[in-house]
């Protein structure tokens, strides 16, 4: 596997100048993490665990206090490569309303391309392509404020996608959406990932994390767990001790195991759970 993002022993703190004397709040404490090309990584953690800060390190919004971050071989400290880095790693935020700049959908999707200075005919092509990718092509001439939350978030994703980034980092993209919007976004994310885009999904929904190829759990500025969802969620007790939940299905199977029923402890999808229980009942 080819390494795409390398985070090497990174620490980061916010300085609060309003306090007297200024206080320092260290949110990342020596994080080391590699992300491979084409991976779908979910980053879990409760509030204040440093997961959003970690995301912002990936495209030079935050620069590490110590340590280095490499994106596709470029150090994020390298100012000459700033726009190359931001084109490589696109970022989508929580509130779709606060990411949309223009008053017409297609103009907003074109925003990043206009900034990079792409030729108008090429912008047109890429905007149409990005809008079709997220299934919003029919809405290209609509005003964003009249769309639903899920639709707006898809526009925001299209705006990033138009840059043709190799990696998309999403910082809780579904937190402000209703279940339908959440489903739309997850579908879009999995589709993009299947086409080779590296996805880093910051979330606090266990069900979303369960769909990733790899789950990284953060706690107090450090990486607590890192591995396949099955492996991570089987450690239910540890997750609960840092204020996180496990998917409902996992919770259920763990309860059943404790009650003496013979089930594997790494079930994370409902289908799998149903299948196992069905097998068990058939035997009896």
């Amino acid at each position, binding site marked *: 596997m080819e390494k795409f993002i390398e985070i090497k022993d990174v620490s980061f703190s916010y300085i609060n100048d309003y306090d007297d004397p200024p206080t320092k709040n260290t949110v990342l404490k020596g994080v080391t993490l590699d992300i491979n090309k084409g991976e779908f990584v979910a980053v879990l953690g409760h509030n204040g665990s440093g997961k959003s800060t970690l995301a912002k390190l990936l495209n030079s919004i935050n620069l590490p206090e110590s340590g280095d971050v490499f994106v596709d071989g470029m150090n994020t400290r390298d100012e000459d490569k700033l726009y190359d880095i931001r084109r490589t790693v696109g970022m989508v935020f929580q509130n779709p309303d606060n990411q949309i700049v223009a008053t*017409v959908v*297609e103009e907003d999707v074109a925003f*990043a391309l206009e900034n990079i200075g792409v030729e108008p005919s090429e912008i047109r092509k890429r905007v149409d392509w990005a809008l079709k990718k997220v299934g919003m092509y029919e809405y290209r001439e609509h005003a964003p404020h009249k769309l639903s939350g899920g639709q707006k978030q898809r526009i925001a994703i299209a705006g990033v996608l138009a840059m043709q980034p190799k990696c998309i980092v999403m910082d809780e993209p579904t937190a402000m959406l209703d279940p339908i919007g959440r489903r739309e976004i997850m579908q879009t994310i999995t589709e993009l990932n299947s086409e080779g885009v590296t996805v880093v999904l910051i979330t606090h929904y266990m069900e979303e994390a369960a769909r990733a190829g790899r789950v990284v759990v953060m706690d107090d500025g450090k990486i607590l767990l890192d591995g396949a969802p099955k492996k991570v969620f089987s450690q239910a007790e540890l997750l609960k001790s840092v204020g996180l939940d496990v998917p409902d299905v996992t919770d259920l199977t763990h309860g059943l195991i404790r009650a003496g029923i013979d089930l594997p402890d790494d079930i994370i999808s409902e289908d799998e759970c149903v299948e196992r229980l069905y097998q068990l009942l058939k035997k009896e």
Partner: protein
Amino acid sequence: MIKDITIGQYFPGKSAVHRLDPRMKLLLTVLYIVMLFIAKGFLGLAVGIIYMLAAFLMSGIPIRMMLKSVKPILPIIVFTGFLNLFFITTGDPLVEWHFIKITTGGLKTMVFMASRIILLIFGTSLLTYTTSPITLTDAIERVMSPLKVIKFPAHEIAMMMTIALRFIPTLIEETDKIMSAQKARGADMESGNVIKRAKALIPILIPLFVSAFRRAEELALAMECRCYHGGEGRTRLKQLKTAPRDYVALAVTVLFIVAVILLNRFLPI
């Protein structure tokens, strides 16, 4: 409901006036204003009226909307009308009563000035009725971009206008929410005198401002993530192209101005 407000006073349509290049429309509006100001007599003004009437009929804007555009400016028209009527004393006297003296000169100036103001309003309204705010912003940026040489922030102004237009509906919606939230907490915004009601707005304005600043910060971050770095080296999705009809419109307008100049010279009534 409150979400559906129209921003500005754009009246969507596909008429010849709508389809003109917005930069040309800006230029034509300026030329039209010049035309009105160089007209010395009623005949010159009549040329302006014909021009306006032609543009208005082509645009397909309902007459009711055009009349509505004059309404806010009515007090000014009446006020200047009275000043002209009572303080200009040229020409033959019509009424003389104590200190009030109305002359033909005063009456003439009053009618002339009032028609000129009304025509001015019609002209600029026609521009905003037939051009969407965003297109207009775009046109302003492009028309002003040569001024960048003297450090005039054309791009920045246009960007600010775009963002303002984009966030008006969002903030209105938010105001609505905050008002409901404060009402649910027992805030009373409908009773009391003016001062009391103004004070009642504070619990709405403060959360609104806080939220607007937070939005601004997040938007700035999102813009940075999308490689925004000012107007330098920026391209645009939509290219404005001047079509033959734009030059026809320009030629016609110039002809009208020439007509006004000739009338000034040879028939200055």
